[in-house]
């Protein structure tokens, strides 16, 4: 059985390579291609669920298959499959390359999820980041360049941070780092190294106040590109953060304060900015940033319950943030772009509404369950100030999401003559409708049937060595 563990990764990478080759042959993809690629991602997901429960370690511990990896890979494969299904491919400049890149971005997160050392973490993060640059560049080269520079800065910070931690601890192996942390004191060099590392991850995730690239990209990129940046790349950064937090848990003083500050700024800043903006895509980006803050708050607790809750929320986040921009398709201008969507595209509209509400933490959707679990962990840690700030951000996020839902369901559709490039209606296909319905079921079912999911997330936290 352990030989089959690489099948999901193999399927995803092989699919991406084939797609890149196909892009050389076909200028426009065949109609069946999105269905085939979404099916491939789903098959990889099913394989992951089937064989991923086997605990195994390869390459001298550099690649680990445990419950954490199972959870993170399943979440990201589901997000990728649904994003491919709901994307309006007529609105993408390079659809075949786009499909290849989202598979590679998912592969990047899978590498991070299974990484047993710093090299795997860094490599997975870079793969996810690089795919985002490729997709963004296909529409706007300037934005691709901006993302490349930002990614370079983030990558440099992460690399320096990891190198300093390695230099301080003497090992790049995550279990070894965790073991050695028990003997290390909270020294200043280690604190600086972790500060640089956490800063790099925050820049990569694009959370406030490091949203220099994220917001313009949210506005100017193709829907799929925005989904990869807001969702998958941030999910990769967060997965690295979860693994690092798991390894550093014996010395919480070196990372928890930074994470708390980052969480507080992201939760409040994300909510406030989401309330202030009118563009649905930018609003979604800020709502996602707010939820990233909640994930960071869970990590800052440095308890198993907190990390488990963060992982549980990370799954909900990846699902909503990756698919959200793809669902909205060309609606990257004002709220009127979504006006009347509830009448014109009911399944897609329901998906958009649930994505916004879930990212805002509205009950009874996936985001609410995750944020509540994190809040419970934060309260157990006694950080009520952080909980209060998070709730403040959540109230603002909820108001912002209600504004968008209002536009979708309560405003009349604009005249066709007023529909510009930024308000184009997505093309209706069977796959997109099916994908939107499946997304709705996933976001609603994530909370309602949370018992097995959060149990798996909890086992994932346990797999990081937390008791």
């Amino acid at each position, binding site marked *: 059985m352990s030989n089959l563990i690489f099948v999901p990764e193999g399927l995803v990478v092989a699919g991406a390579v084939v797609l890149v080759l196909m892009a050389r042959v076909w200028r426009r993809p065949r109609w069946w291609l999105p269905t085939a690629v979404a099916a491939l991602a789903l098959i990889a997901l099913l394989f992951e669920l089937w064989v991923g429960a086997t605990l195994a370690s390869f390459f001298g511990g550099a690649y680990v298959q445990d419950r954490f990896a199972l959870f993170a890979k399943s979440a990201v494969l589901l997000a990728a499959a649904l994003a491919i299904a709901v994307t309006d491919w007529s609105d993408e400049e390079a659809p075949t390359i786009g499909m290849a890149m989202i598979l590679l971005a998912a592969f990047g997160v899978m590498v991070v999820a299974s990484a047993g050392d710093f090299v795997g973490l860094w490599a997975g993060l870079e793969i996810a980041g690089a795919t985002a640059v490729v997709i963004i560049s296909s529409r706007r080269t300037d934005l691709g360049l901006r993302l490349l520079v930002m990614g370079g800065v983030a990558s440099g910070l992460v690399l320096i941070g990891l190198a300093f931690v390695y230099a301080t601890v003497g090992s790049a192996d995550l279990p070894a780092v965790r073991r050695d942390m028990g003997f290390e004191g909270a020294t200043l060099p280690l604190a600086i190294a972790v500060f640089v590392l956490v800063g790099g991850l925050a820049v990569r995730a694009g959370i406030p106040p490091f949203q220099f690239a994220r917001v313009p990209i949210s506005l100017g990129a193709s829907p799929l590109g925005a989904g990869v940046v807001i969702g998958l790349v941030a999910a990769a950064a967060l997965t690295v953060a979860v693994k690092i937090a798991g390894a550093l848990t014996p010395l919480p003083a070196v990372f928890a304060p930074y994470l708390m500050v980052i969480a507080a700024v992201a939760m409040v800043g994300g909510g406030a900015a989401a309330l202030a903006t009118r563009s649905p895509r930018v609003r979604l980006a800020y709502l996602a940033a707010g939820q990233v803050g909640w994930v960071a708050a869970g990590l800052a607790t440095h308890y198993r*319950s907190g990390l*488990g*809750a963060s992982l549980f929320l990370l799954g909900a986040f990846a699902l909503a943030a990756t698919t959200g921009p793809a669902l909205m398709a060309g609606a990257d201008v004002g709220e009127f772009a979504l006006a009347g969507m*509830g009448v014109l595209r*009911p399944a897609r509209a329901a998906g958009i509404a649930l994505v916004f*509400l879930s990212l805002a933490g*509205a*009950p*009874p959707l996936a985001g*609410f*369950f995750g944020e*509540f*679990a994190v*809040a*419970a*962990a*934060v*309260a*157990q840690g*006694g950080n*009520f100030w952080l*909980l*209060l700030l998070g*709730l*403040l951000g*959540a*109230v603002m996020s*909820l*108001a912002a999401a*209600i504004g968008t*839902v*209002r536009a979708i*369901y*309560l405003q009349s559709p604009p005249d066709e003559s007023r529909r510009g490039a930024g308000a184009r209606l997505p093309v209706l296909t069977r796959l997109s409708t099916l994908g939107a319905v499946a997304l709705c079921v996933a976001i609603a079912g994530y909370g309602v049937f*949370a*018992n097995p999911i*959060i*149990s798996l*997330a*909890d086992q994932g936290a346990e797999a990081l060595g937390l008791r």
Partner: protein
Amino acid sequence: MIFAGIAAASPSPAAVPGAGIFTSPLILSLTIWVPVIVAIAMHAVPNPRGRYDTLMKQIAFFTNLGLVFVLFIAYNQFQTYLPTMQFEEKLPWLPSIGVTYHLGVDGPSMTMMVLSGIIGITSVLASWGVRERVRPYFSLLLLTQAAVNGAIVAHDMFVLVLFWGAVIIPIALLVLGWGGARREAATWRLVGYWGFGTAALVVAVMAAYAATGGRSFDMDVLLKATLTPRVQLAIGVALVIAAATRLPLFPLHGWARDVYSEAPLGVTIVVAGTASRLGAYLLLRALVAADHDAAHLLSPFIAALAALTIAYAAVAALRSPDLRWAAARLAMVPGGFTVFGLAALTPIAIAGSALSIFTGGLAAALIVAAAWTLTERAQTRSMQLLSGLAPRMPILTWVLVLAALALLGVPLMASFPAEAMIFFGAFQSQPVGGFAVAAGLALTAVALAAVVHRVLFGQPNHDAPAVSDASLGETWYLGVLAGALLWVGLFPGGPKLPGTDQPIFDPGLVNIMAAGITDIASPYVKPAPAAAAQ
């Protein structure tokens, strides 16, 4: 198998009409999830150019009627001699953090469920005139109903927070989509205040969770744990803030005027009737029943808030230039009474408060519904123009007068026994507060007299637009509210079949309400003087 579990014949012999027809281990879940499923189904059904608008309204109505039927069954099968939770459902939900899907009702919550059933039917009847986007309107109305029911029957704090927060979204969308000219302001105020209140509730729940070792959110664990007075006080303050934003209480009442006057009528009835009553219910369930030390410490402040709320509402109503605004202010009065009874912390006052949640919900809904309908029929909301309408609006005159009497708690109205119990109990423990609330009641009487006299019995204003009396449809929903107030006022033990001692609704609302109160109020029973002397 599932359906067999949902609807199985009761094995017990039918002692009273209604009992034994039907029983279900999921009876409370039905009251939550049936409206949700119907709402989703309604939303999914195509309705090209409003072709099936009437059908949508009928579906919403019959769904509510079905809920009332289920509640009727639950009401009849409720055991008044048991102080414990009944119809309990318990399933693990998020076991790693101690969340269970735990539902149950005791006397006060069963009473609130009856209120929710009445208000649900009334709100659909009051929404019959909605013509724009009928399908989403009634879907959202059903979702609101489901969320309110969920908050009432929740016996796990997570479930309570979930439904307490979930109420906000459909109501906000209803106000935003179908409200009056100031609907934007009304919505954002509602979201702001209720969101703030939800945040306060989450803080209270999390503080209790952390203080009890982070094992469970079940009310049986959280509310029965022994906490230090300091922790209790922190939790109590957060609970009071949560309740004050929802009920509303002065000074956290900023949403009430705009929402009650700008929301569509059906929504106004739900908000005034049940959604806002959840605030008082929270204080009863989580503060009075659980945090006894905090309740004692905070009782003078809560009593002061209650007195201020009543006085403020009366003065603001007197100064209102708009009849709907005046009604919105007056709808705050029953909440003040309810909270004052809870602050008194005597068994009789607590029992009065539990009944007052029911009667206050009906009275508040009736006053805002009467004012809303009257202003629609008179084609103006201005108090300058509304004058001397009684001869031309006999039905609405009766309804407005009944609403005023219900707010004041005069005999024969359901609010009379509630207010009487509150005052009897409160003067034992909160004499100063009692006098303050009585003074507020006097001010309310003045305000009501002034409003009723001016609008109904003053000199007719010939510059005012033409008026007409309530239509048959309007009479229905107003009649249901007024009838329910009179029902409990005239037959507090339940109406009886003519010529028999057999009650139609056994065991009677007051008996139902009293079940569970003994348990809640037992820590506040003072020892008898003889026993104290020994």
